[in-house]
Structure formats: C-alpha cells, structure tokens
C-alpha cells in the first residue's frame, strides 16, 4: 500500500531541549497509525509540527497526493487545514462551547461557505445559490451527527454535551473539513470502556468508509491494540520501535520503556 505521510529526519529543539530527535516514519493510506510512548516522549510535539503549530528545527514532512508530494513545512497555521487538508483534534477538547453543535460543524466548513456566500455579499443579499450551499453544509453536518448519534442535540450548546459526546463531536468536526489525514490527540482520554468501544467503531468507519488516513496518539491500549494497523513507539523524542500491534506487544524495547529495566 502506498504512503500517505512520510516524516523524514524530523528534529524539534526548544532551546537546549531536544523534544524530537531525528524521527522518521511513514503512515500508509487507509490505515490507522498509532504513536505511543511514555509521558513526555514527544508525541504531541510531533502532532504540533505536522499541523503547523510548531515549525520543526530540521527535517521534512510530506503528504503524498495522487501524483505529487506536498511538503507540510510550506504551510503554517490555518493553511495546514485549509490547503493541505490535515485535520486534528486536541488532547484537552477544544470545541466552541457557547455555540450549538450544528454551528460547530458549520465553522469547520467555513472556507467553502465563505466562497459560497461571496465573502458575505451574496449572503447579505440572501441569494438562493448561497442558501442552497448552506443547506448542503447542514446536510453534511447532519450526516456526521447521525453517525455519532447526536442529531437530536444539534441545536444544543456544544459545551452542554457529556464528555464522551464532546470527544466524538470534535472528531466529526475535524472530518467536516474533508481531511486527507486526521490527527487525533488522545481521543480516548477520559472515556469509559463503552465509550472507548464506540470510539473504535467510529475510527474504523472513518478509515474504511471515508478512506481517510488516521494518525493517533493514545495511552488507552485497548484502543491502540484494537484498531491500529501500524504502531510507532517514541521515547525521549526517539523512535524505539515500529511494527504491527502484535509485534509491539512482544517487543522488549517497548516493555522496557514503559516498565523500566530489571536491575
């Protein structure tokens, strides 16, 4: 299977601290790639480099498209999501709490709607072309809400949802930008076993039905082992192991990194 994302010799330094050290790995198309490692291993830093929040010290990140590859270094800030189509969620949920669930999903479709509304001109004139486009955006939001079973709460404030539903909403909000790569930062944090199982189902659906590659940071091993096609293990910013979930479970280096070495 072809590559979706290649990270090549990525290094990120904060002053004297080397958060990521010469990291290289690939994520394949239509696969779930997990990045695991003990706390402080540099997982979230990798995400922040990929999604334009940090500019890596050295190294390259490429997103492979049909016939060419795009360097993610070229894009910063909001352009990662807008142009390169890399979406992400956050370790501590970042919804728009005082806005309704539906509005949250419409903000994710901001750029298309902005063009459809003629940069607000057609919208102010209330043209039919804009209203149709807006209806399409609402339909897309409804499609995703049906999948996570939150359609009945579409008009409630996102901040009023239970924690597990907020997690799911954040994931489908990221999906509304129609990403090529979806980066999830600890989506199972704080979920109970039932909610984790639902999350697994949702991620598998995104992988198989939406053909979107997923990059996952996770501590919950039931999620990682249950759905990952490929696992990358980090410790102190270095890659210490890479393989399938089964191989990872048996790897001596990984067990040492998590549990320590026998004296």
């Amino acid at each position, binding site marked *: 299977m072809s590559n979706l994302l290649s990270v090549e010799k990525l290094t990120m330094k904060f002053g004297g601290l080397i958060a990521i050290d010469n990291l290289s790995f690939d994520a394949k198309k239509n696969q779930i790639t997990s990045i695991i490692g003990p706390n402080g291993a540099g997982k979230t830093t990798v995400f922040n480099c990929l999604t334009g929040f940090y500019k890596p010290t050295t190294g390259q990140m490429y997103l492979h498209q049909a016939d060419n590859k795009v360097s993610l270094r070229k894009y910063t800030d*909001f352009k*990662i999501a*807008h142009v390169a189509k890399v979406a992400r969620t956050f370790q501590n949920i*970042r*919804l728009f709490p005082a806005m309704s669930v*539906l509005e949250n999903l*419409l*903000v*994710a479709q901001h750029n298309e709607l902005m063009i459809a509304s003629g940069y607000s001109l057609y919208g102010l004139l209330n043209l039919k072309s804009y209203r149709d486009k807006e209806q399409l955006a609402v339909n897309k939001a409804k499609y995703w809400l049906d999948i996570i079973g939150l359609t009945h709460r579409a008009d409630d404030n996102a901040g009023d949802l239970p924690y597990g539903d907020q997690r799911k909403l954040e994931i489908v909000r990221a999906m509304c*930008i129609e990403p090529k790569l979806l980066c999830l930062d600890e989506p199972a944090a704080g979920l109970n076993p039932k909610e984790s199982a639902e999350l697994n189902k949702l991620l598998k659906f995104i992988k198989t039905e939406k053909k979107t590659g997923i990059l996952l940071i996770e501590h919950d091993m039931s999620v990682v082992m249950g759905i990952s096609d490929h696992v990358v293990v980090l410790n102190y910013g270095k890659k210490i192991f890479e393989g399938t979930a089964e191989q990872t479970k048996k790897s001596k280096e990984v067990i040492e990194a998590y549990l320590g070495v026998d004296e």
Partner: protein
Amino acid sequence: MQKQDIIKSFKDSLFTGLIALALFGPIVGLRTASKGEGLFITPQWGVVFLLVGLCILGRFLININSARRTEFKIFSTLSSKFSSITEDKAKHFAITGILFAVVFPFLPFTDRYFMDVAIMILTYIMLGWGLNIVVGLAGLLDLGYVAFYAVGAYSYALIATTFGWSFWICLPLAGLFAAFFGILLGFPVLRLRGDYLAIVTLGFGEIIRIILINWYEVTNGPDGITGIPRPSFFGLPFKRSPDEGEMSFHTFFGLEYSTMHRIIFLYYLILVLALITNYFTLKIRKLPVGRAWEALREDEIACKSLGVNPTNTKLTAFAIGAMFGGFAGSFFATRQAFISPESFTFIESAIIVAIVVLGGMGSQTGVVLASIFLIGITEIFRDLEQYRMIAFGGAMVLIMVFKPKGILANRKPTILMHGDKK
C-alpha cells in the same frame, strides 16, 4: 427571631458604621473653603453623623430581613423582572420598541429636551451595536472605540467643510475612512488577546485624540472645527430664510418655520442609521463570517485547526465595527455642527463598552436596554450636577448584582436544525 441574632446583626451594623465613618469622615466631614487669602477647612460633622447613622440603620434592616429569609420586596421583584426578559420576549420588545421610536416625536409630551435625550440615546445605541460586533461577537475587547467615532466625525467635518459635499456623500466616505483606521489598528493587535489587546486599543484611542489636538494645520487643534454643514432633507435645507431662488424645508411643504423640524429630521436620521446597523449585524451574524467571529471568540486555536483564517476574520470584525462607529461619528458632527477633541475622550469608550457588557455580550436588545438605562439615569439625575456620575455607577452596580452576565445573556444559535421548538 433569636435574641442573639439581633445582637449579632447589631454588632455587624456598628462595624458598618465604623467603615462608613472612616470613609465619610475625611471625604464629607472636612470641607475646604476659600476665604480671602487662603483655603480653610470647615468641618461638617453633622452631615457625617447623619450619613453614618443611615448606614448603620440600613445595614441593620438588611441583616434583620435576611435573617428572616425574606428579601426586600423591591429587590426580588426587580430581579425577577430582569430574569423574565428572554430573547423570545425580546422580539416583542423590539417590535414595540421600534414602533414607539417611530411615533415618539409626535407624542404630546415630547419636547425639545426629550428629543435631544432620545437622539443621544440612539447615538449610543448605534455605537453599542457597532462595538457589539467587535466585543460581543468577535470577543476582541476594544477600549478605544471612540477613536473610530472621532475619525468618522473629523472625516465628515473636513470633507464637508473643504469640498462642500452633501451629507449623503460624506457619510459613506467617513464610514470608509473609519473602516480603514479599523484595519490600521487591527494589524498590530492581531496576535494580542484579552488584557493586552485592551491596553493597545486604549492607547490607540488616545493616540487619535492627541493627533487631533496637535495636528493644528488640518484639525484646527483644540479649537475644533466649526460651521459643519447641517444635513438637508433631500436637498431642502432647514433654514428660516433660504437664499435667493432656493427652497427650504418649511417653504417647500408650506409649513410654519420651526427649529423642531431639523431636530425631528435628525432623530429619524439616527434612528434609520441605528436600525441599519442592527439589521446588518443580525444578518451577518448568521453568515459564515459571523459564525467565524463567534468561533474566534470561543477558541482561536480550534479555529486555526479548522482552516479558519484568524487574520482576515479579526480584521473584518475591526473594519466593520469601526465603519459603524464612523457613521455614528459623522452623524454626531452634523448634529453638533461643531466638533473638538474634547468630545472623544476615554470616558466615551468606557460608556460604550459598559453598554455592550451590561447589555449582555452579543445581545442586540440588551444594548438598547443598557443604553436607555445608563444614559437615561444620568439624564434623570442631571440636577445633581457632578454627582450624577454616582447614579451612572449605581446603575452599573445594580445590573451587575442582579444580572452578572448582562441584561440579556441568552445566546440564540444562528441556525437551527430542528426548527424553533420553544
């Protein structure tokens, strides 16, 4: 009530009296009076004891009442009155409010003074609505909004006095100038949020005022600009004796000349301008850009992760907010016929921000209520002269005590999937 409760509340009120004494003693008790060759202190201990006594009595009554677990009737009714105002009722309020505003000039009790106050309130409502875009929707605390008001007023005054163009050409130009200044302010503050943003905008407001004072060649400095042309009614001026071969408003309609004609026209002018601001804000809030403003207020990082361009979004909010400030400024200039930097001090910005915050951030009807309440109360207490600002402060405290989130704090979603159920 228990005896010990009474003793306890009595002790508490004595303590209140002590604090009151410490406050009123030097402030009220020692009054300086200039007699002949110098300043002398005249003590007013009688007044101090009266005030302290009132404080003790008031505190004691409150204590006894709260011990009985009954609130003062006036407080509880006020509180429930305020909390019963929801956005649904606000709609009826809006319609009756607009109808009332339209017939207001022709009501029997309406005189020149009432009209002047109404025009002032409407100006503040318009400024509040304009600032609501920046503060209420986009969440960018702007303490220098008066700068755009000033830019609008001065652009109008300078264009109108230099080129002699009519009000209806100068008005959009003044709005454009103000919007341009909004973008000019927007650029340096793009990375700032919260307190830092507030301080820079506050500085911007002062910069504009100081430029107006010192750029004597253009702005005429502290002397201000005089002889700003009055607006005309579709080319018909409001003059007692029109020039040769020219019609004026009263001769054209065959009316007796009255200064009220112009006042009524100005009233309708600001009413229409304010309603345009309101209509525009309500519309744009439901468009993608409006939703992006609110999303930016909620979480800027999440916005970036969804591909929303924060730079453009903030700049449009600043520009549009500033534009309406500019429109209000040109109205101010044409109404006063004279402007000077005196009119654009920080207190104006503070009042507008207070109106937006007390009204309930982002609520259009809230701005109206807060403007009427704050400006109205200071007008009612005008006889108290310098002490009327106490009434202003008191009004703010009352709102914050009973409605800490503002008079109307409920936000209605901009789009509904299931229709309006309520």
